[in-house]
């Protein structure tokens, strides 16, 4: 044997070695982790690096996971895993807090009122303020439920405000968890904060920054060092920095059923629904059925008013670990939530539809983007704002359709946000008022609802 043959044999052994964790080892790992002493309740004593402003804010919390779609690429014989569908469920519920204190109907009333009070119209901004370059930024409430954040702010300028773009970073305990404003995806600066604002006067506007994805999922420390570093307001560069100690709050409302499980079968078990002022969380375990085609299993959430909270792809539970699906906060008008299991048959193809935007589409005169022979995307509005471009579409029933916005001369426009609630569509970065736009749409397959597995959760 020579050195070359040895090399080949060594490499071949490596290729044959499997690394799936056997159950006995996985169990030992879980037992070890469960036995670790809990130090998380100890309040962090690290010194604050900056203290431009300080305030103590309360925080609320429920849970969440990264919203979005991720495919399970599975190969195997296609079987219909929906065969054992059970009857439609309307679950009897218990209502209590995480602390096991019994709650009454008052709690959901309080939650609804809290969410209403957080709206732009009904909440004044009276917290700490920072000034730079003649622009004054003041913070209002900061709500942190450990999975989602909402930050109320007000901006006043000595000069009339014409550009409402805001650029900044949010850090928790020194880690940047997301950006506000124009996304720089190439630099990894994903604008995970939605920025909703209203214009109060020519020199003032107010808004709420809120998370759309949750990259800091599970940020559950009792106290969090929250920093907001705004580096640009409109066209003015400057430094408006806040360093705030934020306390996490328990969810306002937790719903479980008496058996501690909404077993909807099909491998999905929903154990808890929790609601805070800033997010709605569904706790679940999930074991997908084997399937030969690319299939994504998920749940959508909507309420009895038709308000849609979006869709979340389910994660496969390892070792029975509970996963969390996060959605936006409860619509205060809702009386019940509907959890809708859905699966997507993921099919990537090269068929893309393109359409130039030659006039402003309206609901009565929409822009239709054909995708192949039998699919289409219907665009009902394109709003060019100074800080964003909003493209509104109709719900594409039964289809998984994605689309991109292109500035013909400058390339792809970065995505900022996804619309939800009563709306459907996407929010992109700003474009020039005269820019020639093009929409490129793509079909990713079909989505199938499973009505017999839907779970309706009545709010108390």
């Amino acid at each position, binding site marked *: *044997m*020579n*050195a070359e043959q*040895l*090399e080949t*044999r*060594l*490499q071949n*052994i*490596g*290729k*044959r*070695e499997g*690394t*799936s*964790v*056997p159950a*006995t*080892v*996985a169990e*030992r*790992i879980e037992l*070890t*982790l469960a036995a*670790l*002493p*809990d*130090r*998380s309740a*100890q309040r*962090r004593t*690290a010194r604050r690096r900056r203290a431009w402003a300080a305030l103590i804010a309360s925080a609320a919390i429920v849970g969440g996971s*990264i919203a979005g779609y991720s495919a399970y690429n599975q190969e195997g014989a296609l079987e219909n895993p929906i065969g054992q569908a059970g009857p439609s469920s309307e679950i009897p519920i218990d209502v209590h807090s995480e602390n096991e204190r019994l709650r009454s109907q008052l709690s959901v009333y309080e939650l609804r009122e809290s969410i209403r009070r957080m709206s732009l119209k009904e909440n004044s901004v009276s917290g700490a303020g920072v000034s730079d370059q003649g622009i004054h930024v003041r913070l209002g409430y900061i709500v942190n439920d450990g999975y989602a954040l909402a930050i109320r702010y007000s901006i006043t300028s000595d000069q009339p405000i014409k550009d409402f773009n805001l650029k900044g970073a949010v850090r*928790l*305990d*020194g*880690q*940047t*968890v997301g950006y506000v404003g124009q996304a720089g995806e190439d630099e990894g600066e994903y604008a995970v904060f939605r920025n909703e604002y209203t214009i109060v006067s020519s020199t003032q506007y107010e808004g709420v920054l809120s998370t759309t994805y949750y*990259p*800091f*999922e*599970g*940020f*559950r*420390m009792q106290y969090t060092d929250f920093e907001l570093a705004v580096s640009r307001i409109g066209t003015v560069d400057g430094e408006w920095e806040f360093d705030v100690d934020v306390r996490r709050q328990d969810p306002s409302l937790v719903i479980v059923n008496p058996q501690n499980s909404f077993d909807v079968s099909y491998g999905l078990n929903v154990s808890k629904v929790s609601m805070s002022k800033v997010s709605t969380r569904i706790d679940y375990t999930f074991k997908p059925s084997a399937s030969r085609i690319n299939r994504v299993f998920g749940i959508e959430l909507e309420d009895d008013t038709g308000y849609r909270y979006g869709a979340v792809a389910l994660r496969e539970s*390892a*070792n029975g*670990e509970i996963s969390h699906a996060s959605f936006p906060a409860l619509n205060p008008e809702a009386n019940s939530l509907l959890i809708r299991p859905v699966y997507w048959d993921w099919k990537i193809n090269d068929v893309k539809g393109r359409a130039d935007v030659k006039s402003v589409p309206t609901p009565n005169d929409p822009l239709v983007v054909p995708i192949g022979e039998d699919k289409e995307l219907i665009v009902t509005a394109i709003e060019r704002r100074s800080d964003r471009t909003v493209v509104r579409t109709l719900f594409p029933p039964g289809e998984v359709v994605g689309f991109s916005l292109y500035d013909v001369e400058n390339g792809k426009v970065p995505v900022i946000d996804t619309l939800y609630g009563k709306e459907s569509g996407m929010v992109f970065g700003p474009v020039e008022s005269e820019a020639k736009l093009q929409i490129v749409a793509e079909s990713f397959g079909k989505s199938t609802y499973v009505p017999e597995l839907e779970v309706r959760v009545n709010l108390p």
Partner: protein
Amino acid sequence: MSELAWKTDVQLACSGDREAFSRLVRQMQNELYGMARTLLHRDEDCADAIQEAILQAYRSVRKLREPAYFRTWMFRILIHECRRIYRKQKRVSPTDAIPDRAAPDRESDLDLKDAVNRLDEPLRTLVKLHYFADLPLAQIADIMNVSEGTLKSRLHRARRQLVKWLNVSERGEIGYEC
């Protein structure tokens, strides 16, 4: 887990957050087991090594000076623990070293694996990590805290030794120690 979520959890774990630490370990458990399995024979030993590594890491995670090296640091602790268990095993009955799983290895693989096990440290661990665990030299260099050049030199020595042993073995001039 996204890179950002990973970094956030490392930061949290370093500040004493048990849940974040647990998430990191769960995220790494396939790699941890894969590494332990290349260095030890039995799953029970792998579980012991991983358990001890988790406990040691949790005890000292707050002292980790550079959170970016959490993964490397964790591997280093595990390798240390695997070596300790391996040394202990060498002193007990050889039947204890029978693998848990039905061995799919070909006979020639067994020859080679036995030869690798006869290498002195640090050559033995290096060969196992590089070939059996399929780790790139750059990562092993981080874990073992030596330069890639040193590792290449050691690999060369290890291969030369293995070729020598296996050639002798093929001629039937040497038996196996156990």
